[in-house]
């Protein structure tokens, strides 16, 4: 709580001071990072302790804010604190230099955003939750539209705001259902409400829609690929890494805490939607040519994986398999933490690239590993982690999730027994495609030859930015190497939600959920063996090999006029995906004629959901508002008659 206030104060201080003293912005963000670490450390220290509640006297009269810190809140606060610390550290350097001037307003919005996310996690009544939720949406909206002079960004911001509000309405209705007619909107009452399965299902569906719209669940994901590229990079990192997780938090809170029962089909539904989201996201990530858009789609993929884990948790827990539910929930939480770190790292990495080169289009980049080695190598860690490669963190959560999938035979429903292991294939496909996407992203941006001559002057990120990236990269590495430690920290949360915690059957080195005979994985030994093998190979080659190393031109296949333009463009690298998954997208392409002197190529793969679902809705909405527009005459008397008629109607109706 104190931290939220601190962030708020920092923001206000920034607002007041920065226009006068530009130098102050640096310490403000730095302090923000420090607060982040403190928040994270507090949450870490809290884990396992009984819940604490507090009542704030702010708010409407008779409607004070209730706050509560329990293990579920703590684990997400942990993500918020530690991940935001790295991002704020980066932002200290990022906003200070170059064209992104650190206006006081930006400073306020940024810290308000952080503070409101913390409030969302802490809120213990629907009222405080909604206020914080809206505050979060609004502050991030203003952050997205930082460069509001550009029409596209304004459009993206509008779309974001629209989706955020549609989701918020759904959440409001959800809380309305949850209070069950008592009129009490604190979560403590909601926990005690006894609901019929019918109403509980309605509440769950509303929550799924509302939180899904925030998280980027297909088909309510459309705002995400628009809004994330529009925002400044540290903000994209915050939104993608942390804000999406607040939606996951909300879903967990409603399903496992506020509702006293779980029904199996909720899990099946979420699992199916999650898997569809994961595949849809990664396929579209593979065909993007804008760095940040690619990462935004990849966020959708990761949210899909998290939601698939969530669905599995619900299925297990409805079936009374507490142990397995604990495993699935651990995988879910682990992936949520992981995603905050590696996606944050990748977003700030692209931020540095964007800063140094001024373009987000991958077609204009290349070869940056030579001019920006720090950024390149640190981003490599993030890219390998998100591709789910051992021994980094992405692999741990995917491994846990696959184990959970494998344990499904034993459920009481035959259908699920058969379908779920098959569904695991789509997790595997999503993971393999994620590797494809990351090879594309990293290879096109950082490797190869510069596609533009000006890239030779690209400058390395400043030391503060590097420090921020190092922090996040360290998070990725540690989460990958010490899973038992982190799972131990998650255990209280898991116990709170599912009634059981994951028993680790191995030693501290060995991750062995459920049973060491069944499956185990030890990243530290893994890494050690790889390192030993590397060292031995290196020594062996040294021993055997006596030749020199000579530099020469690359092999040109007998055609001497090789230019950097002959490398695969981003579109070119995505071509197999476009070909194989043609059914999902509409490809728009303009190709130059062979005689064109200044050839221009344009290619885009458009989300079919946009044209199939949203445009008809927009058309219907437009038509409806046109009809409503007929009522408009401009005469005040008519309006008064409308109001009067409505009043009479309502009075008759309420009789």
């Amino acid at each position, binding site marked *: 709580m104190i931290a939220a206030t601190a962030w708020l104060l920092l923001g206000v201080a920034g607002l007041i001071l920065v226009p006068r003293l530009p130098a102050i912005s640096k310490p403000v963000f730095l302090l923000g990072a420090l607060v982040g670490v403190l928040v994270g450390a507090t949450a870490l220290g809290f884990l396992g302790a009984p819940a604490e509640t507090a009542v704030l006297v702010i708010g409407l009269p008779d409607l004070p804010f209730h706050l509560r810190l329990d293990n579920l809140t703590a684990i997400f606060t942990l993500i918020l604190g530690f991940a935001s610390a790295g991002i704020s550290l980066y932002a200290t350097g990022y906003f200070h230099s170059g064209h992104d001037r650190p206006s006081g307003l930006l400073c306020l919005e940024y810290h308000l955003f952080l503070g409101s996310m913390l409030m969302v996690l802490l809120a213990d009544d629907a009222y405080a939750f909604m206020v914080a939720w809206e505050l979060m949406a609004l502050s991030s909206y203003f952050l997205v539209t930082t460069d509001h002079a550009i029409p596209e960004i304004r459009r993206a911001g509008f779309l974001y705001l629209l989706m955020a509000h549609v989701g918020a309405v759904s959440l409001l209705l959800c809380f309305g259902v949850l209070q069950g007619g008592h009129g009490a909107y604190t979560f403590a009452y909601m926990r005690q409400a006894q609901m019929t399965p019918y109403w509980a299902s309605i509440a769950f569906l509303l929550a799924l829609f509302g939180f899904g719209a925030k998280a980027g669940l297909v088909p309510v994901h459309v705002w995400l690929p628009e809004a994330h590229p529009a925002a400044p990079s540290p903000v994209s990192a915050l939104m993608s890494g942390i804000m999406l997780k607040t939606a996951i938090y909300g879903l967990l809170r409603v399903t496992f805490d506020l509702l006293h029962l779980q029904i199996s089909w909720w899990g099946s539904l979420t699992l199916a939607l999650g898997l569809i989201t994961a595949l849809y996201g990664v396929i579209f990530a593979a065909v993007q040519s804008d760095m940040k858009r690619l990462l935004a789609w990849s966020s959708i993929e990761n949210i899909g994986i998290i939601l698939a884990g969530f669905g599995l948790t619900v299925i297990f827990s409805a079936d009374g398999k507490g142990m397995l539910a604990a495993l699935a929930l651990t995988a879910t939480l682990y992936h949520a933490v992981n995603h905050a770190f590696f996606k944050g790292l990748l977003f700030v990495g692209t931020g540095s690239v964007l800063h140094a080169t001024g373009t987000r289009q991958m077609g204009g980049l290349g070869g940056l590993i030579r001019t920006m080695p720090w950024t390149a190598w640190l981003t490599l860690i993030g890219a390998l982690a998100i591709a789910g490669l051992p021994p980094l963190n992405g692999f741990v959560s995917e491994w846990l999730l696959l184990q959970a999938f494998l344990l499904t035979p034993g459920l009481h429903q*035959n*259908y699920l027994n*058969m*379908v779920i292991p*098959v569904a695991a294939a789509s997790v595997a496909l999503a993971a393999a495609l994620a590797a494809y996407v990351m090879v594309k992203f990293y290879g096109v941006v950082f490797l190869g030859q510069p596609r533009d001559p000006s890239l030779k002057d690209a400058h390395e990120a400043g030391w503060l930015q590097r420090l921020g990236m190092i922090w996040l990269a360290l998070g990725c590495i540690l989460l990958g190497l010490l899973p038992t430690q982190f799972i131990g920290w998650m255990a209280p949360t898991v116990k709170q939600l599912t009634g059981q915690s994951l028993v680790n059957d191995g030693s501290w080195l060995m991750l062995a959920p459920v049973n060491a005979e069944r499956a185990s994985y030890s990243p530290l030994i893994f890494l050690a063996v790889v390192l030993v093998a590397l060292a031995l190979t290196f020594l062996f080659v040294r021993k055997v090999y006596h030749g020199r190393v000579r530099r020469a031109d690359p092999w040109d296949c007998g055609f001497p006029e090789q230019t950097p333009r002959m490398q695969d463009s981003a579109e070119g690298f995505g071509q197999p995906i476009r070909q194989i998954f043609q*059914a999902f997208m509409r490809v728009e392409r303009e190709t130059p004629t062979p005689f064109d002197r200044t050839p221009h190529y344009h290619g885009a793969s458009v989300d079919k959901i946009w044209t199939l679902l949203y445009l008809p809705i927009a058309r219907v909405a437009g038509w409806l508002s046109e009809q409503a527009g007929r009522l408009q005459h401009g005469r005040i008397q008519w309006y008064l008659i409308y109001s009067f008629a409505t009043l009479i109607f309502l009075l008759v109706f309420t009789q």
Partner: protein
Amino acid sequence: MATTYPLQIVNLLAAILLLISFAMLSQRRVVGLVTLFAWQGAALASSTAIIAWSTGQHHLYYSAGLTLLLKVIAMPWFFYRLVRKLDINRDVEPMLNNTATMLIGIALVIFAFNLALPISQMAGTVTRSTLGVAMACVLLAFLMMITRTKALPQVIGFLAMENGLFFAATSATYGMPLVVELGVALDVLVGVFVLGIFFFQIRETFDSLDLKHMEKLREK
């Protein structure tokens, strides 16, 4: 599982039947389809024979022989001739692309397996677990008929469906009475010959065996 070897072989043959059903679903050439159909008949005949041998149900030997004669030798031979005569060994263009068909196929298999579980628990035969495979074969053959536009693949799909039903009957109740089976076999034989004659007629009328042309027959 501690079942006997003949039963394991029957299980293996059931799996092969299912595999052939999938292969038929994705096979685009008519001749390949006919060959697969012959193989399916062969698998069916041998599994029937093995069931007959292991359970001592003698009438199943006749069924096996009949299957061998009709579905492995006579009909494929007739179809090969038909294909050559009518010159219809071109690629069969399916209505749906292959991947989508396969995914629907997998969904159907899951559906069939789950459908069969309660039924097979009621059945008293030792081969009851293959009932799910039989049902899956029926559904897959149906799917094949839906996705094809040409006449001959549709007939083969129909016959494959009959194969599946036959297999279901053997696995659930050790086959139907011999009289019924003979009747069905005769029906199928006559049906195939009649259809063969129809093919010639259809082609003379429409100059093609594409059943899309049948739409012209509808009353305006």
